[in-house]
């Protein structure tokens, strides 16, 4: 961090920024301690995890307040603390952390949601015998995620990234006794790994080009003007600049983590994990990490863009996001597993965020990220509560009429559902989604994303209505009576519900506080924000769309209670399409016949090579040497040994002759010695005398 | 005047030799000195014998000799006359030559020892560079004479006594040497005069005798034990243990030869306590600085007589050891402790001036001595007798 000061003398790092590393360190430390705890120490483990998490939350709030304070003074502060990790000759690999509006907001969101989920899982997991292990993993995950958030260096970010990947693997496979869970864990790990490989490539390339992995370093960081212009000057393939190419590689990593279209397959299966995990990892935080990453490297993506214009990288991001949004929403329509529906909705919402990033900039995407984090966590935990209440039942067709059975859950769930659908004016989802739609409307490249996103909104409203209707309305089709979940689970739901509503106020056109905060310029309240041309019309359209979706869903599913075995309404209508959707458009199968088959074939080929070609060569060499050895053995036996035996016999006979002299009398030997001395001395003297 | 009193014998010698021609003076001086020594110590011997008999008598609650002269003072003279007039018996089967040589060798060797012991300021016969070595060389030859005596008088008691004596003397010579080597290490010289000079100074009124240092004290104790054994004194007087073998190696001796043996033993006592005095008790130096006016030779001889009294006292007090106990004591107790003493002396030498060396050395010695004493005092050390050395 001495470097940072020496690089940027005008920038004073506040003690709070110095202490920022504590935020991830605390959960990681508690994870380390929890790993050493005995299984029976359930309370200790939970207290440890929750305590460390709340400490991190306090620190995060402090940091947020600090940033707010500096923002009030005009431009928002960006404080970095950098230090050299490895020094090899002239080149050094630096690590560091950063405190700016983006990281501050993310910190608060992650710690808050995480804390709530921790509390929730105390109730949810209380019957599990691996309670302590679960909390150890959770803390580890939170730590990794927070490290990703505060990282000011792509390398540190990557470390946290991989830590997060590892913990998600551990948590998805938490009930590893179930084959499905184990398989899902493996799938998630491998799929994200594909993305990470691209990410790593991008990182290496970046380092090779700029010589640093720090984002901001008082002018010499890789996200700052000098480095960016250097990257732009460097041409790459497909008419991309190096900046764009690296951006795309990093985006591939992000796509892997936040389940964008080609790599989304792991996310639904990840629902095999415990529900809090689904809520924490696969709704609120980890999948958001991809979006956050794109936001972090946004300067890289945007580099070379004309004012208001876009770049190739951003265009790719947009298209992928938009497509994913619609695609996942379509699949969600035809699912019957409560958590799978939510998973696909998550994917589609992530698509929205990506599209927002691509078209509207950091603020738009991040705003939707924040709001979505809260209401999607709410929904997942509501679903968990439902599953918990209805005895581990996950099929929505086997539920129904839970409205009366679990009122708290129903209320909060409804709030979350409406927020997700973007119910007008009162719910945060509406405003954040509106922001994205507005950005899409004004996008200069194409109109198609706008329509796709609007259609996605319609589908979202539709499948959420279907789900709610199946779960909470109609007559109960459950075998056993459901019951309300304990207070420790419902309380977090309530809190999340509050945020799901309230957060919307931060991003209304009338008072675009969030955007201003992230972009770091002042903001004031004024209804003239709505006066912007087309905005009201857009709001109207989306409202109409939402109501259309709700109404359609209610018309088809509301009030009636179809038995599980009888086909779905739409299925009877358009069976073919339905089948496709039911099988998730056969993406998995497609991969099965293409990628996986190819790898299987390749493995066979390599095996054959190993056995036949290399193995054969080795065997041949071995055979040659064996032959040589055989020859040597023959030579030894016949010649060498034979010769030795002969020689030994001769020696033995000679010794026998000589030993006559040795009659065992000491004095004889002495006598001979003395004689020899006499002779020797005589010779010496005689020779020396002459 | 004081100076004169101190140096009186030296002056006397010079005055006497003054009459002779120059080429004779050196030899004459040596001859005179030898004559003096040879006359002086027998006189002391007589005194010591009387002292011993009277003292032992007192200790054993009886009168000692009290017939000859007032309080039996003349007893030694009577003894001398008797031993001179007695018939000199040589056993028939004895090896006459060796039998005759043995006492002579003994007495000669013993008297040789006095050549290097300083008996007062400037009162040493030969100030030899390797004085201590010479002394031990001479004392080593006495063992041979003892063996000669025992073997030559074809008598199993004599032989046994001689073997015992020789074994004992050899075993106790080692600790004797070791304990004196400590002194040599500190002084840095083998010359006895130098050793005395090194001790002849005072802090306040107290002298710098080696016995007043930790290693010196321990070394002196060891030295005393070793000398007691070396001179075959009780409690180490097995070689002439009357109850077991009549009179040890001089059973077959009578008359003048016996007297010579007797004399030899006592003179050996004198010389070895003289050496002890020189090594540890500051030789002829006065015990207190304000007593330096007393002539040095008086101090020397009074110290010798004092140690003789200690010998007598010990003899009157302690019972006789068993042969195996004796040997075990020598090799398993005294020798290790003297070796330790060497180590401590080296430590003392290299710790330099200051209080630390006092603390460290005393601590080490105290700890080890106590520990070893406890080990030796354990009951199972007094087992059934093993006839290893007395077969």
């Amino acid at each position: 961090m001495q470097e940072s000061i020496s690089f940027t003398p005008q920038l004073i790092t506040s003690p709070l920024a110095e202490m920022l590393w504590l935020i991830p360190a605390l959960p990681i430390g508690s994870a380390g301690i929890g790993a050493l705890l005995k299984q029976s120490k359930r309370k200790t483990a939970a207290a440890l995890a929750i305590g460390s998490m709340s400490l991190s939350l306090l620190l995060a709030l402090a940091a947020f307040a600090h940033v707010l304070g500096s923002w009030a003074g005009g431009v928002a502060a960006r404080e970095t603390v950098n230090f050299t990790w490895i020094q090899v000759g002239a080149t050094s690999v630096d690590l560091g952390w950063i405190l700016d509006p983006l990281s501050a907001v993310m910190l608060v969101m992650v710690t808050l949601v995480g804390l709530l989920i921790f509390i929730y899982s105390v109730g949810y997991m209380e019957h599990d015998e691996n309670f302590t292990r679960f909390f150890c993993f959770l803390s580890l995950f939170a730590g990794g995620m927070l490290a990703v958030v505060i990282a000011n260096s792509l390398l540190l970010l990557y470390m946290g990234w991989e830590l997060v990947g590892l913990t998600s693997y551990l948590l998805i496979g938490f009930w590893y006794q179930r084959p499905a869970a184990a398989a899902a864990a493996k799938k998630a790990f491998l799929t994200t790994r594909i993305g990470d490989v691209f990410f790593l490539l991008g990182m290496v390339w970046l380092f090779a080009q700029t010589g640093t992995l720090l984002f901001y370093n008082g002018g010499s960081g890789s996200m700052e003007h000098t480095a960016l212009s250097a990257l732009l000057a460097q041409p790459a393939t497909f008419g991309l600049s190096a900046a764009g190419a690296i951006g795309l590689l990093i985006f591939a990593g992000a796509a892997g983590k936040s389940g964008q279209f080609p790599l989304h397959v792991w996310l639904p299966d990840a629902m095999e994990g415990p529900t809090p995990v689904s809520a924490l990892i696969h709704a609120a935080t980890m999948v958001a990490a991809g979006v956050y990453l794109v936001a972090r490297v946004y300067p890289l993506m945007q580099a070379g863009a004309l004012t208001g214009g876009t770049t190739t990288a951003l265009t790719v991001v947009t298209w992928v996001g938009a497509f994913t949004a619609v695609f996942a929403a379509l699949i969600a329509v035809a699912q019957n597993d409560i958590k799978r529906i939510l998973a696909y909705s998550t994917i589609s919402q992530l698509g929205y965020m990506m599209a927002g990033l691509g078209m509207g900039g950091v603020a738009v995407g991040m705003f939707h990220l924040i709001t979505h984090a809260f209401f999607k966590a709410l929904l997942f935990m509501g679903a968990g509560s439902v599953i918990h209440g209805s005895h581990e039942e996950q099929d929505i067709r086997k539920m129904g009429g839970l409205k009366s059975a679990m009122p708290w859950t129903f209320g909060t769930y409804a709030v979350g559902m409406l927020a997700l659908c973007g119910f007008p004016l009162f719910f945060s989802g509406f405003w954040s989604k509106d922001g994205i739609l507005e950005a899409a409307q004004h996008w200069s490249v194409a109109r198609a994303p706008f329509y796709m996103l609007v259609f996605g909104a319609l589908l979202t409203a539709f499948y959420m209505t279907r789900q709610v209707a199946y779960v909470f309305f109609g007559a109960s089709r459950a075998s056993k009576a459901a019951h309300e979940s304990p207070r420790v689970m419902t309380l977090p739901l309530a809190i999340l519900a509050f945020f799901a509503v309230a957060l919307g106020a931060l991003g209304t056109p009338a008072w675009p506080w969030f955007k201003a905060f992230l972009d770091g310029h002042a903001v004031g309240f004024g209804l003239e924000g709505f006066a912007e041309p087309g905005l009201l019309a857009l709001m109207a359209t989306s409202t109409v769309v939402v109501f259309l979706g709700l109404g359609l869903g209610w018309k088809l599913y509301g009030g009636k209670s179809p038995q599980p075995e009888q086909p779905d309404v739409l299925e009877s209508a358009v069976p073919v399409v339905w089948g496709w959707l039911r099988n998730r458009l056969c993406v998995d199968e497609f991969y099965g016949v293409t990628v996986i088959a190819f790898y299987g074939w390749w493995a066979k080929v390599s095996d054959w090579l190993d056995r036949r070609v290399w193995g054969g060569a080795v065997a041949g060499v071995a055979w040659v040497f064996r032959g040589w050895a055989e020859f040597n053995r023959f030579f030894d036996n016949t010649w060498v040994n034979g010769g030795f035996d002969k020689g030994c016999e001769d020696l033995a006979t000679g010794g026998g002759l000589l030993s006559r002299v040795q009659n065992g009398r000491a004095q004889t030997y002495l006598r001979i010695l003395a004689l020899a001395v006499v002779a020797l001395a005589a010779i010496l003297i005689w020779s020396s005398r002459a | 005047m004081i100076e004169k009193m101190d140096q009186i014998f030296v002056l006397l010698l010079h005055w006497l030799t003054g009459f002779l021609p120059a080429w004779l003076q050196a030899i004459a001086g040596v001859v005179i000195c030898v004559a003096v020594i040879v006359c002086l110590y027998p006189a002391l011997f007589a005194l010591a014998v009387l002292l011993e008999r009277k003292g032992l008598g007192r200790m054993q609650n009886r009168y000692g000799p009290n017939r000859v002269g007032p309080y039996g003072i003349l007893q030694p003279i009577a003894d001398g006359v008797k031993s001179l007039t007695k018939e000199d018996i040589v056993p028939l089967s004895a090896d006459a030559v060796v039998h005759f040589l043995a006492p002579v060798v003994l007495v000669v060797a013993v008297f040789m020892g006095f050549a290097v012991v300083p008996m007062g300021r400037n009162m040493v016969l030969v100030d030899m560079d390797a004085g201590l070595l010479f002394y031990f060389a001479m004392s080593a030859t006495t063992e041979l004479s003892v063996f000669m005596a025992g073997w030559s008088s074809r008598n199993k008691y004599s032989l046994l006594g001689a073997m015992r004596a020789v074994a004992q003397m050899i075993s106790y010579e080692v600790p004797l040497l070791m304990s004196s080597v400590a002194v040599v290490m500190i002084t840095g010289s083998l010359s006895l005069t130098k050793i005395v000079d090194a001790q002849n100074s005072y802090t306040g009124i107290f002298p710098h005798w080696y016995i007043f240092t930790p290693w010196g004290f321990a070394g002196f104790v060891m030295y005393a034990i070793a000398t007691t054994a070396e001179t075959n004194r009780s409690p180490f007087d097995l070689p002439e243990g009357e109850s077991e073998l009549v009179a040890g190696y001089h059973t077959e001796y009578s008359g003048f030869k016996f007297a010579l043996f007797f004399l030899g033993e006592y003179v050996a006592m004198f010389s070895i306590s003289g050496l002890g005095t020189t090594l540890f008790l500051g030789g002829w130096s006065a015990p207190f600085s304000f007593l330096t006016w007393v002539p040095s030779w008086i101090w020397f001889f009074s110290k010798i007589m004092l140690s003789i009294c200690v010998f007598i006292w010990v003899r009157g007090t302690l019972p006789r050891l068993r042969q195996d106990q004796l040997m075990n004591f020598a090799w398993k107790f005294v020798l290790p402790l003297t070796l330790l003493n060497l180590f401590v002396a080296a430590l003392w030498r290299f710790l330099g001036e200051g209080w630390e060396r006092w603390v460290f050395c005393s601590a080490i010695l105290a700890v080890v001595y106590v520990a070893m004493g406890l080990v030796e005092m354990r009951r199972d050390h007094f087992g059934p007798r093993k006839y290893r050395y007395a077969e």
Partner: protein
Amino acid sequence: MTPLAGFLLVAALLFSIGLAGALTRRNAILVLIGIELMLNAANLNLIAFWRYGPHPEALTGMMFAIFSIAVAAAEAAVGLGLVISIYRHAHTTDLDMMNRMKG
């Protein structure tokens, strides 16, 4: 005849006496004594050379003699110990009887 030569001759004579004894006596102990004599003769040589050599202050011969005395003492101890154990074993110290170690 110079002193050095005289000492050397005495040493040679002593050596030869020791050798003769070692060669002619049957008693193992006496053979050992002969060997000791030879060693001492060598010592005498060393000392004589030290005394009359060019560099007495270097002490070479003296040291040689001292060390050889020490070694001789060790040799005597071990040798006599061997003789005793042999005697215990064979009940004789006659070297003519001890010819078991013949080839």
